[in-house]
């Protein structure tokens, strides 16, 4: 394992159920600290509503914590301007959100290449996208639109899109939910390969089978990590 790349310290996030009174407030994530190392594939498991996705979103710089800090290679994400945080997320953090998240106006190829052009990068993009689509077995769908794809194929598009910028960290939220065994294996192998290439991978899942690919398994319950925190 390499150095700590992404670190969350004392993270807390509360939400309100319908109504604004304090009694309806609940802590989705309560005082959680977590560290991810380069080359490490870490699984975060727990029941639905245990706070896994909320934690992942905070680590990705997508959800401002009520308390605590998130730092990427020593840089405090939430101290950055929106412009700087967006650029950093684009270049260093690959996020695979839950569900189907391909942009329906773009082809598979355009979906995957888009992050490379957001902040001006243009070198080798075409080759990189071709190679990723090949690796993930969706090269022949390059010119297809998302509406023509199956759930497994869409998930692979999301993974290719997260990997294309060669980020330091990959954060995947339930990447294998609703997938058959064959697709699950394909997706997990791709994430595993990314970690072997030196990326820190956090995999949020509630599927035991998926967790078997991880180097370390953390468990969350009621907003807290109850098992697997790095000593």
């Amino acid at each position, binding site marked *: 394992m390499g150095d700590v790349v992404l670190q969350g310290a004392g993270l807390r996030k509360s939400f309100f159920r319908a109504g604004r009174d304090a009694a309806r407030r609940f802590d989705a994530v309560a005082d959680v600290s977590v560290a991810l190392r380069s080359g490490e594939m870490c699984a975060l498991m727990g029941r639905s509503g245990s706070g896994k996705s909320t934690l992942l979103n905070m680590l990705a710089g997508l959800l401002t914590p009520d308390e605590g800090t998130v730092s990427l290679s020593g840089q405090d994400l939430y101290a950055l301007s929106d412009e700087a945080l967006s650029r950093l997320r*684009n270049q260093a953090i690959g996020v695979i959100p839950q569900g189907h998240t391909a942009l329906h106006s773009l082809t598979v190829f355009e979906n995957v290449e888009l992050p490379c052009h957001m902040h001006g990068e243009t070198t080798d993009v075409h080759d990189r996208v071709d190679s990723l689509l090949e690796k993930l077995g969706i090269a022949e769908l390059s010119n297809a639109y998302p509406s023509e794809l199956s759930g497994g194929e869409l998930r692979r598009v999301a993974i290719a899109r997260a990997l294309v910028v060669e980020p330091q960290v990959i954060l995947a939220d339930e990447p294998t939910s609703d997938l058959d065994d064959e697709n699950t294996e394909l997706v997990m192998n791709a994430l595993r390969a990314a970690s072997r290439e030196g990326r820190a991978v956090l995999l949020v899942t509630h599927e035991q089978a998926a967790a078997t690919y991880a180097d370390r398994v953390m468990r969350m319950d009621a907003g807290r990590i109850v098992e697997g925190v790095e000593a």
Partner: protein
Amino acid sequence: MDFKKLPFKNIARHPGRSALLVSLVAVLAFAMLAGTLMTASLRHGLQSLEQRLGADVIVAPKTAKSTTDLEQVMLDGVPGSFYMDASILDTVAQVEGVKQVSPQYYLATAKAGCCSYPIQIIGIDPKTDFTIQPWIARSYADELGLNDVVVGCDITGAPGTTVRFFGVECRIVAKLDETGTSLDGAAFASAETIRELMRSAVEQGQQTMDKADPDKVVSTVQIKVADGYRASDIADDINLHVRGVWAVPSRSMTSGVADGVSGASRMVGMLVVAVWLLAVAVLVAAFSMTGRQRTREFAVLRVMGASRRMLSSVVITEALMLSVVGAAIGILVALCALVLFNQALESALSLPFLMPSGGTIVLVSVVTFVLSSLVGPLTSALSAMRLSKVDPGQSLREE
């Protein structure tokens, strides 16, 4: 793919949504331009009519019976003939406060070589006329000779050609600019010419002239009031002291038309405001709804690394492109409709209707284009601002 191409892709891949938004903006632009130009045309028409009437007071024979007869001839262009003794001209000129007088002669044709419908021929005395002559001078600088006629823009026949009235061959020497009034369908001649036409009409049995001598009658006397006098006082004075005539201030004659113009303008204005409010409300709702429907799409773009500014630029560029196309279509349709249905509108409204100058039309079109093109982007900017305040993680979580 360049990120800047994303708005184009979004528009092309959602033809239904794009067409709806373009149509809404087109309706907005159409309503604004058509409404504004209609109102301007009505006001311009009224202005033109008042200028053409020219006189402060018009004196007509009592046989014209009521204002209706006179107004029908003067304002509505209904061909009509009525006469009074020419000596009235001198009598009226003696009335205190009368600065200038000039006679006019009316002769209605049943059917002329030039037209398939009756037209009004108006005779003027070029030496004293101060109402029609300045207007004719813009198209024809020379003096009207015997059997020369100047025709309104609605009369067929080009300058240089001839037209036959009551068997008399008349030469068209000029065609007048459009006024948007009934005078566009009239022909103008000198007193000398119209007297000859009157004689010929009597000979052919098409006019009786009330058995009067064409050389000794006039149809109306146009009066210019001296400074310091009121047209209504002069009219009252004439009505009281001159027998057999009926004097009316021209402003009171056009007041009915002015009321009509004002009412029609108000109605069109209200309609335009209503259509605008409705279209803006629908546009705001449509763009906001589109924004809400695209919450997840925007969150995904943020996940990929799009900043709030980039997201806003995508949304605003899309709205701007759709709005520009919609505004252009709306303006084009409105201009075509006004050009094609100009005459029909004039007839339907029964009011003077004269399109404003080309410069005004261009100016109103440009203002309409800018305003219509801005509604979509402004609405979208608000929607984008609202969306950008929500953490993308929160948007993804809520889906």
